[in-house]
């Protein structure tokens, strides 16, 4: 045992490389399986908790990913008209979602307070947003950015929809949501109007009635005032300037990315889906759990390919390991002869080599178990941070 330990210590880099290689090969297939299974479970849980998503015709997967996990895949926008139309049709209630902007790399989700009731999300600190320019943040956002109620966040310029008028808007944080272990922990929620201000559909500026400067007010008549580029636009909504904020155009034409539809009962859901499928109602209604299950059936097919690759790589590693051991024994022939000459038995010599192998395989096994344990502990966090 002593000689085996000394050998591994002396050749520590070679030993570490071998141990790492074996550990990775042992860990990867099951680690990946664990990651995929856990991702499926978490994504499916959320999908099953969402009965129906309505969006523009296009990829159902992108629609579900955008609505449930706020990944902001590029999808065509609906308009608020669809919400009004569905409310008229009946069968259930609509929760509009507008997920197109970001602040410090976290998605800004425009919605209404029904969303929190639907998801059963509670406030841990502060209160829900109530007026224009206010937002609440998920627990991970608060933790990562070290923010709390009373702080502020500025939306990032540029967006999924890339309209010309995307202005950075300073939003006041009124509350931090309780942890939900879902993508809601990584999102910034505000009301739809605030997201439309970010988009440039609504804005606030100096009161044109009070300005005489001809470089700012270019023309004025009884009904129309034309302002120039020098007009100061507000990038923060406060009690002092809130009255100046206004929206242009028809509100029913304002964009949203999707609608979470909560049917009154199964029958209502079936009828509504039938109307979408028949084309009586335009756009698409998707059942998120079907989409996620379909997505994972494809991933599992891919995983079978990965499994085969891992088996091949594992076999190759075993061969390389055997080759290294064989070459090692050959290189150590002089050492083995010396031991034998001095009085060692052949059994003792092979015992030394056996212990070396045993320790390397044992160390790899322990490292693999630690990696499995860490995977168990952090897989959810990893999935929420990097996958959904």
């Amino acid at each position, binding site marked *: 045992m*002593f*000689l085996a330990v*000394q*050998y591994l*210590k*002396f*050749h520590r880099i070679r030993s570490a490389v071998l141990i790492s290689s074996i550990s990775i090969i042992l860990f990867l297939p099951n680690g990946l399986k664990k990651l995929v299974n856990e991702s499926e479970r978490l994504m499916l849980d959320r999908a099953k908790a969402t009965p129906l998503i309505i969006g523009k015709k296009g990829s159902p997967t992108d629609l579900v990913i955008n609505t449930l996990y706020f990944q902001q895949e590029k999808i065509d926008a609906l308009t608020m008209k669809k919400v009004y139309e569905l409310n008229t049709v009946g069968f259930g209630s609509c929760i509009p979602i507008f997920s197109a902007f970001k602040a410090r790399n976290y998605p800004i989700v425009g919605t209404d307070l029904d969303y929190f009731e639907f998801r059963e999300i509670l406030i841990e600190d502060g209160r829900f947003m109530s007026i224009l320019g206010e937002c609440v943040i998920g627990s991970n956002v608060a933790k990562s950015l070290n923010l709390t109620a009373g702080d502020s966040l500025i939306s990032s310029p540029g967006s999924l929809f890339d309209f010309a008028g995307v202005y950075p808007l300073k939003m006041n944080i009124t509350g931090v949501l309780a942890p939900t272990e879902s993508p809601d922990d990584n999102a910034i929620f505000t009301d739809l109007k605030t997201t439309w201000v970010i988009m440039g559909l609504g804005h606030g500026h100096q009161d044109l009635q009070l300005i005489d400067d001809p470089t700012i007010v270019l023309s004025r008549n009884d009904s129309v005032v034309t302002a120039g580029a020098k007009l100061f636009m507000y990038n923060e909504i406060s009690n002092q300037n809130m009255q100046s904020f206004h929206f242009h155009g028809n509100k029913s034409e304002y964009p949203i990315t999707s609608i979470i539809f909560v049917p009154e009962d199964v029958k209502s859901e079936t009828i509504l889906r039938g109307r979408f499928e028949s084309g009586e109602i335009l756009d698409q209604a998707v059942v998120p759990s079907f989409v996620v299950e379909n997505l994972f059936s494809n991933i599992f097919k891919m995983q079978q390919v990965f499994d085969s690759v891992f088996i091949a790589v594992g076999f190759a590693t075993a061969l390389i390991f055997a080759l290294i051991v064989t070459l090692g024994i050959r290189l150590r022939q*002089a*050492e083995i*002869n*010396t*031991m*034998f*000459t*001095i*009085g*060692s*038995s052949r059994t*003792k*010599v092979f015992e030394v080599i056996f212990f070396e192998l045993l320790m390397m395989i044992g160390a790899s096994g322990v490292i693999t178990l630690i990696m499995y344990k860490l995977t168990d502990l952090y897989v959810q966090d990893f999935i929420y941070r990097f996958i959904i």
Partner: protein
Amino acid sequence: MGPSGFGKTTLLNLFAGILSPDSGKVTVNNLVVNHLSDQERRAFRIAHIGFVFQDFKLIEYLKAGDNILLPYRINKKLNLSSEVRNRMKSISKSLDIGEQLHKYPAKLSQGERQRVAIARALINNPVIILADEPTGNLDPANKIRIKNVLFESADRFGATLVTVTHDHELLKGFDRVIDFQDFQKQGHEG
């Protein structure tokens, strides 16, 4: 002594019981070595023989001290007691390598490596030290030094020193010298 290929190393291997003669017998200390089993011959080597090799044959991944203790590491029957460790220190000190025990062979000079090899040969209080070209790779100054160390060690530890060499300088001081060329001539003459 004798030129290469005349069987000098083979003779040492016969003494040690590593090889067995096709005919005749090898008697060491009144023990017929070639009548012993493999296991008994190993035990005989460990108990009675100390080896010094031409190219030292130190184990690269063991520090000098552990190289000296190697016979105790590879044989369960030998107890690596504190007494043995003290003997190792004492031998090392007498060979002037007491300060080098924590170093790996690669960090030692040639002369130091040879002295570590001699210390390893002496650690089990051998009755015979078998030295195979012990000065073969050394410079003249180190040759004299190692020769003196071998003689002193054999005297101090009461061991018989058997050396094979083709170096005439090393022969001075030995009680008995056998020239393998003479052996061969006698063999041819029957």
